[in-house]
């Protein structure tokens, strides 16, 4: 039994390794892209719309609603990043019901990659919102001495983000595997079902936490704007 899909290697050309993580990620990417393309190539702007368009609209507006609730902004700027995080993780986790499938999110490499993306995206959005100076000033608030703690906090929460997702998904597969060897008939199915819920919850947690980080990054600018308005 392999703990990570990284270890399932299909091909290797020196440094380039084609493992299960990458292959299944590509599969998910293809699935999402083709699915989206099929549905959105003939979108209706009338009041009567297709079932699939309806589902996608619900999904997109729901994600947008969540983003709006957290950031208090009426903007689509964060939707592609946060939305993709949620959809990718959720689909990746939900597809575990498919036989021989290995969730890419069960690989620490994937979760680290996603956390790294969040790690860089957060300051990027903060800078986009309030400018470079304003963003970096938030690190020395309330005092200069808070700088190391802020930096440590930034890194540790990224690490936590990566490990949390990896741990949950990996543990779900592990428990299913272990139970399969102990009580092969009934429990693994229940655990698999639990795994689906856990997968969705994890996707939601990951996306929401990302949005919270972004929101906190843009908060500094927000505070300044409010202050200016008060004066």
């Amino acid at each position, binding site marked *: 039994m392999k703990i990570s899909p990284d270890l399932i290697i299909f091909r290797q050309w020196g440094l380039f390794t084609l493992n299960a993580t990458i292959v299944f990620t590509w599969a998910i990417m293809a699935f999402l892209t083709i699915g989206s393309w099929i549905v959105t190539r003939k979108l209706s702007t009338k009041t009567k719309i297709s079932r699939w368009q309806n589902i996608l609209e619900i999904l997109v507006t729901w994600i947008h609603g969540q983003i709006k609730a957290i950031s208090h902004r009426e903007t689509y700027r964060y939707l592609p990043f946060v939305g993709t995080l949620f959809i990718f993780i959720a689909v990746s986790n939900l597809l575990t019901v498919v036989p021989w499938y290995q969730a890419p999110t069960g690989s620490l*490499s994937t979760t*680290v*990659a*996603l956390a790294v*993306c969040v790690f860089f995206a957060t300051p990027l959005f903060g800078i986009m919102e309030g400018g470079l100076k304003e963003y970096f000033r938030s690190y020395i608030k309330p005092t200069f001495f808070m700088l190391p703690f802020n930096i440590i906090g930034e890194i540790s929460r990224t690490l936590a983000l990566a490990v949390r997702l990896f741990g949950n998904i990996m543990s779900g597969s592990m428990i299913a595997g272990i139970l399969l060897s102990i009580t092969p008939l009934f429990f693994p199915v229940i655990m698999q079902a639990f795994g689906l819920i856990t997968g969705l919850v994890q996707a939601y947690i990951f996306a929401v936490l990302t949005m919270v980080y972004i929101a906190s990054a843009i908060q500094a600018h927000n505070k300044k704007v409010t202050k200016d308005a008060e004066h």
Partner: protein
Amino acid sequence: MIDWFTVCAQIVNFLILVFLLKRFLYGPIIKAIDKREEKISARIQEVEQKRLAAEEEKNMYLKKNEDFELQRAEMHARMKEDTESQKKQLLEKSRQEIEDIKTRWSESIMQERDVFLRDLRKRVIDQVYAITRQALADLAASDIEQHIVNLFLKKIKEVNGANGEKITQALRDSATGITIATSFELPEEQRDSILQAVRELAAENKDVTFIVSKDILCGIELREKDYVIGWNLENYLTSLEKDFDKAIKADSGRIKR
């Protein structure tokens, strides 16, 4: 545990996925939603406009109705007024016509009365004349003409006093001459006695002309320019006529009332 090549590949994969989903999912979906919202808001706006138009039209019709009601009331009032005035006019006209008819009727009555009186007078004269003639003939075997002439001669002889003087003087000075007018033809004998009486009163050689006049109903008159002496049955008749007239007037007054 961490394969750094996989991490890099996954970062790239994720970024590609972000781009692809933005291109194929979020973009079109948001665009469609926005377009639909735009359409809906446009439709709402259109409905609102239509509602406003309808409201306006409703108000216009209400106003028209009000105007119509007002106009109707006005026309009704005017018609009533016209009818009233026409009624008054017709009443006035009828009253006038009745008044005219009444006047005409009254006039015709008056005319009839006049005709009747004239007729009566003539008949009475004829009758009185005939009766008197008959009575005198029966009583004294004399005719009425003789009595009239006698009465005339008596009257001439009675001309005296201050008034008589004046008359006598006038007769004497008369340039036109004296005319004796009678309602009947005088016999020679009577003419002579009258001539004699007149000449005694005025002058011997005064011209005296005898004429038969239809003006005199029954009598004889001496006519000079300013004076007339004579006897005429007409005087009695005039008195009778006056009595009749009075009686008829009293009657017609009762009719008028």
